[in-house]
């Protein structure tokens, strides 16, 4: 990287060990975007102090929408919370989890189902992974999305088998993945150098039998039936005689004996999964990718996976400890400035790109415009096209050896849409419900260099390469001093559309 322009301003907080750049980068990784006020706050309380505060903050509200079945308000509330809620880290972590434990309105078009799931992820984001996995498994929303709800034991008369959908995806996507992993996330190889599968079709069928007999929660005043009608408040309930009583082949050679209760089968099966050695590296790596970097070193994955295995107090799966380990890791903090990793960082996905820019501009929004623009960019929030999320964790960037999950949504069409979003934000309007404030930039715009200093702090955690500055200056000085607003708009457009801003680094 070229030489770095000095940050124009920085907090003079009581902990000088946290520079404005460090604080800005931490906030890029742990919130929906830094603001000048939060940067100053992190400099004041320190990184650890900030994380302590965030872990203690209660979940932001998702109010019941006026019409309980209409989803728009819930999706708008996601953006309202992302823009303004104090529990930024919880919201960001819950968002990451929502992209790993995916349910989608493409199949469940009902706020009634969505809200309990969103609230559950907010609650579980700082809990234990076992509880998260159990809550997800027994969520009637997930039950409906991946067909565990009303999953019947084998029915010879109708010729039906237990449904394999949830059995497959809980292993492939929510816990262990397809290949056996070393603790540092690298694949284990057999004698021929080939990755070793974690399970086979027999295992799928074992879990699909395990997951039989569960139905929607019983509505107040109703009586439990084999197939309860759709209802989403509370966990799924079991109708014992609809549970497959046979033996079940699970992971790592475990066979559940015949005749266990459905609850015992479920508990045994979830422990079988959670104790699989893959979970730490598999889940840890994806959380790193969502928060920090697309191509973490195996050492980084290994350190996080060790915390997954034991939080220091003998507890496995402590998500708070894992998130802290991810955010305080030397690789996340870029503690080797003399030999920077060229592959560090990740592309801001559309929702994050939008919220980060709006937060930088101190925007006030009803959530309508951010929701609409995110959808135009291929990320209609809570509407993933499938359980595989908007983009896969292993998306390979064409012509590169690197992974870039969010590049799954970055194509030439989306880039034009993205630039046109910035054009509207900078020069026009996103609509009456979303008001952004460029006035601090306009105030600084009398001096093009001072304007770039402000943008560097606001959008690039205080670091703009000298070459970038030298390229931007002529475009800004071409605008007369008498038009500070136009100059501020142009400068904002150029930095916000730059690849250096699009890639959180």
């Amino acid at each position, binding site marked *: 990287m070229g030489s770095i322009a000095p940050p124009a301003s920085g907090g003079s907080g009581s902990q000088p060990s946290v520079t404005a750049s460090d604080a800005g980068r931490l906030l890029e990784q742990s919130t929906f975007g830094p603001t000048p006020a939060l940067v100053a706050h992190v400099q004041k309380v320190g990184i650890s102090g900030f994380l302590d505060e965030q872990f203690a903050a209660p979940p932001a509200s998702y109010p019941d929408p006026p019409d309980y079945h209409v989803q728009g308000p819930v999706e708008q509330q996601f953006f309202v919370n992302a823009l303004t809620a104090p529990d930024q880290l919880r919201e960001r972590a819950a968002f990451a989890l929502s992209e790993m434990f995916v349910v989608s309105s493409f199949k469940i078009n009902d706020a009634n189902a969505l809200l309990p799931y969103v609230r559950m992820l907010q609650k579980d984001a700082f809990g234990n992974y076992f509880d998260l996995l159990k809550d997800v498994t027994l969520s009637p929303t997930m039950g409906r999305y*991946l067909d565990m709800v009303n999953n019947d034991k084998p029915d010879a008369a109708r010729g039906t088998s237990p449904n394999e959908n949830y059995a497959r995806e809980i292993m492939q996507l929510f816990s262990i993945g397809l290949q056996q992993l070393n603790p540092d996330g690298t694949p284990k190889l057999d004698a021929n150098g080939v990755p070793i599968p974690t399970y086979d079709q027999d295992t799928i069928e074992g879990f699909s039998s395990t997951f039989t007999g569960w139905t929607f929660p019983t509505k107040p005043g109703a009586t439990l039936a084999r197939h309860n009608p759709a209802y989403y408040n509370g966990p799924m309930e079991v109708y014992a005689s609809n549970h497959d009583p046979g033996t079940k082949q699970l992971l790592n050679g475990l066979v559940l004996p015949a005749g266990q209760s459905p609850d015992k089968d479920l508990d045994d099966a979830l422990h079988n999964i959670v104790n699989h050695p893959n979970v730490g590296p598999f889940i840890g790596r994806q959380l790193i990718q969502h928060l920090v970097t697309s191509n973490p070193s195996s050492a980084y994955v290994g350190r996080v996976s060790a915390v997954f295995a034991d939080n220091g107090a003998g507890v496995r799966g402590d998500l708070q400890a894992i998130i802290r380990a991810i955010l305080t890791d030397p690789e996340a903090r870029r503690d080797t400035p003399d030999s920077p990793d060229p592959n560090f960082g990740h592309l801001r996905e559309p929702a994050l790109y939008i919220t980060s820019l709006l937060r930088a501009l101190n925007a006030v929004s009803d959530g309508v415009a951010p929701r609409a623009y995110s959808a135009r960019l291929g990320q209609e929030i809570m509407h993933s096209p499938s359980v595989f999320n908007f983009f*896969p964790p292993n998306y390979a960037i064409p012509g590169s050896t690197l992974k870039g999950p969010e590049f799954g949504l*970055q194509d030439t*069409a989306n880039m034009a849409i993205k630039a046109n979003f910035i*054009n509207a934000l900078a020069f026009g309007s996103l609509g009456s419900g979303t008001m952004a404030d460029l006035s601090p930039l306009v105030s600084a715009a009398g001096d093009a260099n001072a304007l770039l200093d402000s943008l560097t702090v606001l959008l690039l955690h205080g670091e703009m390469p000298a070459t*970038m500055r030298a390229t931007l200056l002529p475009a800004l000085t071409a605008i007369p001093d008498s038009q500070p607003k136009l100059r501020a708009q142009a400068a904002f457009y150029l930095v916000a*559309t730059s*690849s250096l801003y699009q890639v959180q680094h």
Partner: protein
Amino acid sequence: MPLLQPATRRRFLSQGCCAAAASTVFSGFGGFGLINALAQQTAPDYKALVGIFMFGGNDGNNLLVPLGAQDYGAYSSARGPLTLAQGALLPIQPVTAPQPFGLHPKLAEIRALFDQGKAALLCNVGLLVRPLSRTEYLGRTAPLPVNLFSHADQQAQWQTSLPNGLGNSGWAGRTADQVQASSTGFPTIVTVAGNNIFCVGNQTRPASFVPGSSAVFQGFDSSAVAQARLSAMQQLLSFDSGISLVQSASGITGNAFKYGQLLTDALAGAAKLQTVFPKTSLGAQLQEVANIIQVRAALGMKRQIFFCALSGFDTHSNQLPDQDQLFSELSPALGAFYQATVEMGVAPAVTSFTLSDFGRTLKPASGLGSDHAWGNHHMIVGGAVQGGDLYGQFPTMALGGPNDAGSEGRWIPTTSLDQYAATLASWFGVTPASLGAVFPNLGNFAAPTLKFLG
């Protein structure tokens, strides 16, 4: 089991009853003068492939159903509650099949095209490393595609034709690598359904367009200040920031500028197509493809590949209503697109075909759905198609039967994707000598290409 060996084929000529049905479907179009005018402008050498990916794994067992009494009986007995009634299926009589088959009731346009000889079906095609028997599969004595039955893996392999799961390019991308580039710098491949490895070659990179969205960067008028900003924005793309992902993003932005402008300029002078497309996602995608084909000369294109997609085929539950809805979107859109190629005078130069993760179990799952399987039936549509017939080998409708990978009706493919795709690539212009470079496993199969394209 009717064996449909790829023997000598002859073009199927539509019969009276079927032509009548076809004219009903396409009665909305009357611009024959325009057809002729456009046909005269047609470049002599132009071909396009249009892939439509049915994401989620289409249940092919209800796409194509045998109507012979014994086979239908076997089908309905295994399919149970997912059985389509014999009377509801749209009957077709493939040229070389001894008995009739039925198409899904919502595939009226496909059926009409089949009857006109403009559509064919390829039976039980899927990912294979080499030909595979049930015994070999059960004994694990032969190489298999990696992570069978997994969406992500099988989607990727259908796009790469690399069943070992390795490689960073798609078979369309590698096919495009083999053909002459355009004269304008417009890329050979266009996706109207987002990023996919299908479109990425060793050199080829696709353009992406979103139907209905501006592909140009707005806000740059001719003023000096706007041009200075544009210039700065473009200069920034060439800087080495020292961050790999930044360079990757800049490459995409640079292409976005170029391709968006080329297409917008080309479309500026184009007449509107008269063909009416359904107002659906796939309808809009295929309309965009037709619009781009219409300006092929302005774009300097002799060969083009397009990628479209429809999601929602993962019918673990509610298979019957969900597939009804999906085919109600698919079939009219494909019918309109074929009609648009007729309108433009390029019907024999444009071949559309379907792709999907995998087929689904013949045996139903709890919840009135079906689970992930393997071999599947696919549709090929176009003026060059040797239509009105089935190709490949229709599987025996028996759970635990000779085609089943287990006991749920997961068909072991009897034709490989390599053969399916190589047939399309070969028609498109990849030479026999180069097919192996595009499809590394093709040599494992006796017939490298099939006969469904003339």
